[in-house]
């Protein structure tokens, strides 16, 4: 057993390989079962975590192979400019609606978190770490550190928000009767940053482009709005 985990820990391809295999398996499971909670991202990460814990492989060793995927996050965000450019006429036409919608989402998020933290008696350090939960990880972490929060709480919350939008994006649109493609995209991106955007692209290019745009707008507007909320608890 230790020999196997030693070998895997030192393998250069292991991290990337297990990530791809688990994601592929998770996609097959989703296709076969059609059960919404079996979202490929959630299922594949669960598989990988179980595998790492059982074989006692440290996360750093896994990351050594998987960081190729991690690196691609930045070029992927930059690549969002392309669908945005293709859909620019839709953006211009609906600019006011998009900005107001995102602002509404940011305020709803901030008031809700303030209310919950007040109710659960959560400390200020954790409160400020919860606030940036629906924005893209790099901006969220920067804001948390700036306000003396706990980084890992923010990463957890950003990941929950992303998974929520990723798993339920299409279902929420149907359930809440959000039918305008632009509104679907903006809701996905404002709730679940890039993970929500991945889902929005499944709905169509307009939705994907608007969701991608919302990552940037929501992130930047949150930077402006957050100072008004950090001192409340």
């Amino acid at each position: 057993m230790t020999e196997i985990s030693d070998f895997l820990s030192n393998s250069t391809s292991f991290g990337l390989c297990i990530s791809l295999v688990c994601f592929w398996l998770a996609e097959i499971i989703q296709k076969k079962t059609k059960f919404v909670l079996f979202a490929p991202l959630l299922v594949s990460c669960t598989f990988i975590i179980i595998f790492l814990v059982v074989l006692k492989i440290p996360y750093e060793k896994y990351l050594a192979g998987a960081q190729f995927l991690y690196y691609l996050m930045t070029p992927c965000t930059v690549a969002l400019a392309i669908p945005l450019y293709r859909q620019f006429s839709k953006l211009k036409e609906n600019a006011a609606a998009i900005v107001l919608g995102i602002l509404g989402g940011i305020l709803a998020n901030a008031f809700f978190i303030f209310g919950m933290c007040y109710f659960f008696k959560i400390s200020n350090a954790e409160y400020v770490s919860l606030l940036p939960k629906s924005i893209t990880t790099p901006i969220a972490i920067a804001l948390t550190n700036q306000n003396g929060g706990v980084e890992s709480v923010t990463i957890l919350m950003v990941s929950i928000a992303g998974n929520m939008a990723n798993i339920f994006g299409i279902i929420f649109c149907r359930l809440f009767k959000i039918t305008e493609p632009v509104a679907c995209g903006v809701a996905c991106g404002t709730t679940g940053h890039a993970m929500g955007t991945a889902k929005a692209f499944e709905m169509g290019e307009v939705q994907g482009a608007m969701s991608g745009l919302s990552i940037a707008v929501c992130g930047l507007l949150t930077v402006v709005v957050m100072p008004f909320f950090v001192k409340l608890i």
Partner: protein
Amino acid sequence: MKFVKQFTILVLTCFIGEILHALIPLPVPASIYGLVLMFAALQSKIMPLSAVDQAADAILSIMPLLFIPSTVGLILAWDILKAHWLQFLIIGIVGSTLVFFVTGHVTQLVIRIMKKGKKND
């Protein structure tokens, strides 16, 4: 060769974004500067869409995969999170649902009001 050129442009934009992030003291990540730059270059016709579209579409098509390493990384934080994990989970789930609802409906409402306004003109 086409892919070499396309990925070079994409990665170069990321790199310029990193330089801007280092120079400008704002909590804006390099990737967002890159996104804005790329968009500006396309919009101003400095660069044609055909110079980056294939690389961009390829990378966008594997987007969900890219979140795996950071999500798995949550196992490192378990000791800090275990005290309040249930509260965090509830806040995350209910909060995200609320944000989705509000954002979607405000956007949709304004779009519909503007459409009606145009019809009446």
